[in-house]
């Protein structure tokens, strides 16, 4: 049985450490904030200019001046700070954010990431994704293992890149992979998923750790 979305988010949340400054992308990564382990405090960064993101507001308390990078209404915390876009990306590019969790269309075995455009289709833009993967200390991709039964973990990305050799780990519905200078390795299988199944659904070369 593969991990459903919430379990993927829960598995990603296990990568959080006390005191981390974290940027969460749109989609499954956003769910990670629902599974922050007890005893751990993290500050969530929103690249439109906020550290210390709170939950959605109660009905009637929405503030048009307070949104996240997905343009959703949110709330502030007692620890919140606000800043402008240049400083926001200064903290991203400058390596001050500990962890970025984001989605992907494709990841290559060397850590190349593609998640912003499909040639021939209308391109919406990369937003802050290229800055995040270039600057944040650790980059974790959370995504479905395949798209329309085609593998998304590849030898090389076929779509235009968001960043070169930037991904440190990939969490899919089938398992967890680590990527470093030596390549990709499978470090965890989702419950009920066999090594054969994951091999069949993965184009990228990977080693299995522990052997």
């Amino acid at each position, binding site marked *: 049985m593969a991990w459903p979305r919430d379990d993927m988010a829960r598995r990603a949340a296990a990568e959080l450490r006390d005191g981390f400054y974290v940027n969460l992308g749109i989609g499954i990564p956003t769910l990670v904030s629902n599974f922050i382990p007890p005893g751990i405090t993290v500050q969530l960064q929103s690249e*439109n200019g906020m550290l210390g993101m709170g939950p959605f*507001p109660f009905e009637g308390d*929405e503030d048009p001046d307070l949104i*996240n990078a997905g*343009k959703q209404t949110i709330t502030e915390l007692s620890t919140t700070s606000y800043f*402008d876009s240049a400083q926001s990306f200064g903290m991203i590019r400058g390596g001050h954010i500990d962890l970025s969790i984001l989605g992907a269309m494709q990841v290559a075995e060397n850590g190349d990431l593609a998640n912003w455009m499909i040639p021939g289709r*209308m391109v*919406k833009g990369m937003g*802050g994704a290229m800055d995040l993967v270039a600057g944040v200390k650790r980059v974790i991709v959370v995504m479905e293992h395949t798209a329309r039964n085609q593998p998304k973990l590849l030898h090389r990305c076929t779509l235009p890149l968001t*960043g070169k050799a930037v991904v440190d780990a990939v969490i899919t519905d089938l398992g967890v992979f680590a990527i470093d200078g030596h390549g990709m390795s499978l470090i965890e299988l989702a419950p009920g998923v066999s090594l054969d199944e994951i091999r069949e659904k993965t184009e990228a070369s990977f080693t299995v750790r522990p052997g």
Partner: protein
Amino acid sequence: MNKIYPDPRTALAGLLHDGMTIMSGGFGLCGIPELLIAAIRDSGITGLTVISNNAGIDGAGLGLLLETRQIRKMISSYVGENKLFEDLFLKGELELEFNPQGTLAERIRAGGAGIPAFFTKTGVGTLVAEGKETREFDGETYVMERGLAAELAIIHAWKADREGNLVYRKTARNFNPVMATAARVTVAEVEQLVEPGEMDPNCTHTPGIFVQRIVHGKSFEKRIEQRTVRKRDN
């Protein structure tokens, strides 16, 4: 020296012409200069290059200037919320230059700070770096990006005093402060106008030197793009 103008149209008088480059603050619809955008629409100028993180949505923000075909080119990081934008782009009626959001912000910051170019690792090895100079520093590759300036910046702030010192509110700050620094003339629409001495100078976000004209808005729509809430526990 009076920086206060009675209405958006007067605040832009003498500054507008066809084919000009305008920076427009905001992120999504948050912190956009909505009154000044409407006044630019009413002015009828065309052939504009607009530097803005996003392009509004259908019927709001810069979407107004797309409806009237006043924009020739957008320099943005994300334009995904606008159907009309897509149609115009696919028909070839609109030019588009994508910048990574942080590169866009830093290009504007640099443009306002007298820095003609800088090196960043954002976008190295991607389409964004194609045709641009790259250099190695300490064993890592960086791509050169140019500073960005405009003839006019239109911005939205929460509070201003008569000197033009500005304070922004929450995440409505975003691109507004950097854009204020990077244009020959910056016009700010503000929600509150106070007398000198009423704002704490320790808390100024944009010093008045960067603001040439101020218009005190009577009412703002401040539309919410994605209204997300949680239920109250009773």
